[in-house]
């Protein structure tokens, strides 16, 4: 009877500007969607952590990490796709507002992932409102205890950031100075580096979402050309980018999505990310396969 207190039709206060349809279509999409949007994550949260938490609401079909347009590293949001609607609803009901990796995350129904939505929409490449301010992870290193208190009190991180932004307008400049001089920041970097790695989706032999990825010029360059805030964030990225692309001499990237053209008939292709693919549903060379064991 939750309906006594909640308008069940109102599933998300957030209206995606980029949804290509009417308000009704948008609401319908939300009501039937098996995708959730997860926001306010730490940049360091990995897919496996997301998997461990969200799998408790049901079997997961797919995880799509939100990436910074420029650096191709996680920037605090992701999408999780389930196989069933009930699981999706449970994820929203029971996980939103709880802590993942020391941060209260928000979980909302999403109208459905489409190619391109994994990129942060902020001007400097990250997720829009995150970019407004310096990364929370940064603060965590400087003010660990205060932050924990806040995290516990469930004040949206947004406000914490705003708070910092309003109260310490020169803070990011300060940060940059520290970083450049290799002061405390350097120590912090080192420690973080020892502890955690940021997955870099731009490198490695299987770039997961390269189709509309621009060539990664300038990745080897110094701290960015964006605003000073972004430098604060890039600062992390740089530390944890394991540049194996270089080491392994990866050839220039080609759009990975080109491949499906080879067997382009969508009907004949086996299901992607199946919960359990049908036994007959095997790949092309089925007929050549040996008989059943």
């Amino acid at each position, binding site marked *: 009877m939750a309906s006594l207190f909640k308008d069940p039709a109102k599933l998300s206060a957030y209206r995606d500007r980029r949804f290509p349809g009417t308000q009704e279509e948008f609401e319908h999409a939300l009501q039937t969607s098996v995708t959730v949007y997860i926001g306010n994550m730490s940049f360091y949260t990995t897919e496996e952590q997301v998997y461990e938490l969200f799998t408790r609401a049901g079997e997961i079909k797919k995880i799509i990490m939100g990436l910074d347009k420029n650096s191709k590293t996680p920037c605090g949001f992701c999408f999780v796709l389930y196989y069933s609607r009930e699981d999706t609803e449970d994820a929203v009901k029971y996980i939103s507002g709880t802590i993942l990796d020391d941060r209260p995350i928000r979980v909302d129904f999403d109208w459905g992932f489409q190619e391109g939505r994994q990129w942060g929409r902020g001007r400097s490449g990250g997720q829009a409102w995150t970019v407004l301010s310096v990364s929370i992870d940064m603060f965590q290193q400087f003010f660990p205890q205060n932050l924990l208190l806040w995290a516990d009190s469930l004040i949206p991180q947004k406000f914490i950031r705003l708070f910092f932004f309003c109260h310490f307008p020169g803070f990011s400049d300060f940060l940059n100075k520290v970083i450049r001089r290799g002061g405390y920041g350097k120590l912090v970097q080192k420690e973080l580096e020892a*502890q955690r790695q940021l997955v870099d989706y731009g490198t490695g032999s299987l770039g997961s979402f390269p189709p509309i990825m621009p060539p990664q010029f300038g990745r080897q360059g110094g701290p960015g050309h964006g605003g000073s805030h972004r430098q604060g964030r890039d600062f992390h990225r740089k530390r944890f980018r394991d540049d194996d692309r270089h080491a*392994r001499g990866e050839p220039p990237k080609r759009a990975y999505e080109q491949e499906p053209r080879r067997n382009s008939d969508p009907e004949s292709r086996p299901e992607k990310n199946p919960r359990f693919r*049908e036994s007959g549903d095997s790949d092309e060379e089925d007929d050549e396969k040996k008989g059943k064991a």
Partner: protein
Amino acid sequence: MSSWRTLLLRIGNKCPEYGGSADVKEHIETCYGVVRRELEHSAGDISNFLIECAEGLPHKIPLLGTVIGLLNLENEDFVKGIVETTQTRFQEALDSGNCDRIRVLMRFLTALMCSKVLQPASLAVVFETLLSSAATTVDEEKGNPSWQARGDFFVTCILSCLPWGGSELAEQVPEEMERVMVGVEAYLSIRSHNADTGLSFFEEDDDLSAGEKDFLEDLWDRIKFLSSNGWKADSVPRPHLAFEAQLVGGKAHEFGPINAPEQPEPLSQLSGVTYGREKHNAELRYPQRIRRLNIFPTGKNEDMQPVDRFIVEEYLLDVLLFLNGCRKECASNMVGLPVPFRYEYLMAETLFAQLLLLPQPPFRPLYYTLVIMDLCKALPGAFPAVVAGAVRALFEKIADLDMECRNRLILWFSHHLSNFQFIWPWEEWAYVLDLPKWAPQRVFVQEVLEREVRLSYWEKIKQSIENTPALEELLPPKGSPNFKYSVEDGREKTEYHAISAELSNKVKGRATAREVITWIEETVLPAHGFESTLSVIVQTLLDIGSKSFTHLITVLERYGQVITRLCPDLDNQILLIAEVSSYWENSTQMTALAIDRMMGYRLLSNLAIIKWVFSPPNIEQFHISDRPWEILGNAISKTYNRMSDLRKEVVSLKKNVLVAEEAAARAKAELDAAESKLTLMNGEPVMGDNPVKMKRLKSHADKAKEEEESVRDSLDAKEALLARATVENEELFLALYKNFSNVLKERLPDASKAQTLRDLKSSTQADEMAVDTDQPSTMEVDDENGGTKKSQSNGESGSSNVYNIGEKEQWCLSTLGYIKSFSRQYASEVWSHIEKLDAEVLTQDVHPLFRRAVYSGLRRPIIELASE
């Protein structure tokens, strides 16, 4: 929301809508005053909303009942309408078996009776109707005792009403009341005791439960006590008493007759497979709501009468049920129940009892996790300590805790701690390090840490146990891959490293799966043989996909065929799993995840997974790690999920077929009608409507027919898939039970020596006396490790730092625990294949402990055991 709605919704809450007042009488007057004024314009809305509030906020029913009683003085017809609507809804709930609605509406009727809206005799008739239905059900000749769950449910509902209106009934219709009480007594004497076998939280209870009271017997005792106490219960507000003088002036309405649902078909036999299967189904439809956990000393609830406990549990369960999905409302209603005593212990116990409820709780464990977190925040001074107390109590008894419950506890605890900065007094549990590695407490700590690491990261968890550094020993390894053909660390390079590098380059160069297969078949396989080839190819592909879950999926999506080609049958698939397990030996999560996805892509069959889990290295882990069980559990649940997806799809397709059939028939009828119509065409009468319309109707009819056929085709296709999945499922369960039976046969002591779990446990001591087995005796532990004494004083109880069950026995206990747990979780599936299982696995010579584990998981009557 208009104000009368808010007032109804918030009645009884201390809130701004009521000016912050907590006086219930004032609330009722205010609310009544406002609602009365609105009656003229929105009677229909008010009536519906009142019933909705009663159904959704059952703990406010007495207040709502009183408001309705006052409205009855004002507008008889309006209230008559409410009574009639309630009756319709109640009948519908009975017909559809909607347990929650039946229960809550009966309480609502009771409150209406208290407010003089409903004639007491009418309520008594409802009770008697249900009572007689219940009595018929358990009658061996006229009824079907396998459906006792339904009879018990009805009688529970009747008894549940009495705290709310027993005193009024006894006063106003003493004869009818007496008849009901006698009827209940009689029902209790003919039904059979409902043993908790297979569903109790603690293993030892299974042996004892025969002598204990079951839920209904216990409730009956509480109600009898209440009755002897003049029907006074502190936890039930009686707001109508304050308005008694006015209310008596109202007209009491009659409640039309209701019909109990039809009796199930009688059974020819009172035992055997059919009986067991029906009993299983009945218990699924009419589940017992709660099973008491009893983890706190009884003194914690001393202010309460016996019946108060039942009432508070009802309130809490109703809040959990109806306010699911509304975090704030749920938490504030949980802490704000209308009772005059503290109940945090009872609240914690009820929550844990739900979290651990077998076979499954009404909601996902995740929900209770959230509620517990919210309550810890809502009552920061009181609740966290109670939760910690519950954890300690459960930890003390972890060796006896049911396997399924233990697993839920591990998941809950790790998740809970992850929301509270991983703070826990680990030093209390440091003594587990002195226990043998199979001691359940030690394994529990190890598995909690494993889950914590998965939710967070290794260093963080290491930091969280800083004040008990010894526990680091129980941390999982850092989860990095173990790549045999890594070129980075300057190890000696073999020819396999070269192959690996070549494959890596091919992948980077976007070679197709077919190209890779050709390369393997022409170059690698002939030169290196199957096993080496498999190892290098699989390890390299895993390494390419090792960065994240998505990388793994991408590589499987692209190069799955390579693996299929290499591992077409069960035996090579087992080697494949071994390779996965070796690559990810440092990360249980990634091992399980990779195997799970490979099964999804059918690179691995579930049978291969079972066979691998029951291979010697894994069997050795059964009692000391959850790793093999997680993988086994995933394989079964994936198969099962697929089945339930297919079943749902078939059901919805069947509906679509009906719709399409109707549409086709309608279109056909329209066409026929038009064809048979005479139309004047150019002055001539011709058969058929005008040609344009005819053409349209024709094409419409054809399309509808086509649509019907296509839906029917897809239904046929799905049904074929379902049939195939059912066969697969049967194979899976047969293989599972055969493997269990075999491994247990090799390890269980002779059946003549171990008939019960207690025999099994006590056989340890005997063993120890006879031979000095490989497990060190407790004395030796003390000698080697001076820390024992210290940790003993650290541990609060101090009683637990000796674990005297031997390794072999613990292995058997853990394995039997999992058999029971799997059987219970998939009981419906197992029941549907039971004949085959009986014939092939559960034969005469099967070990009694194995049989017992399976039977109790299925809640299959033990009578059959005795007769054999």
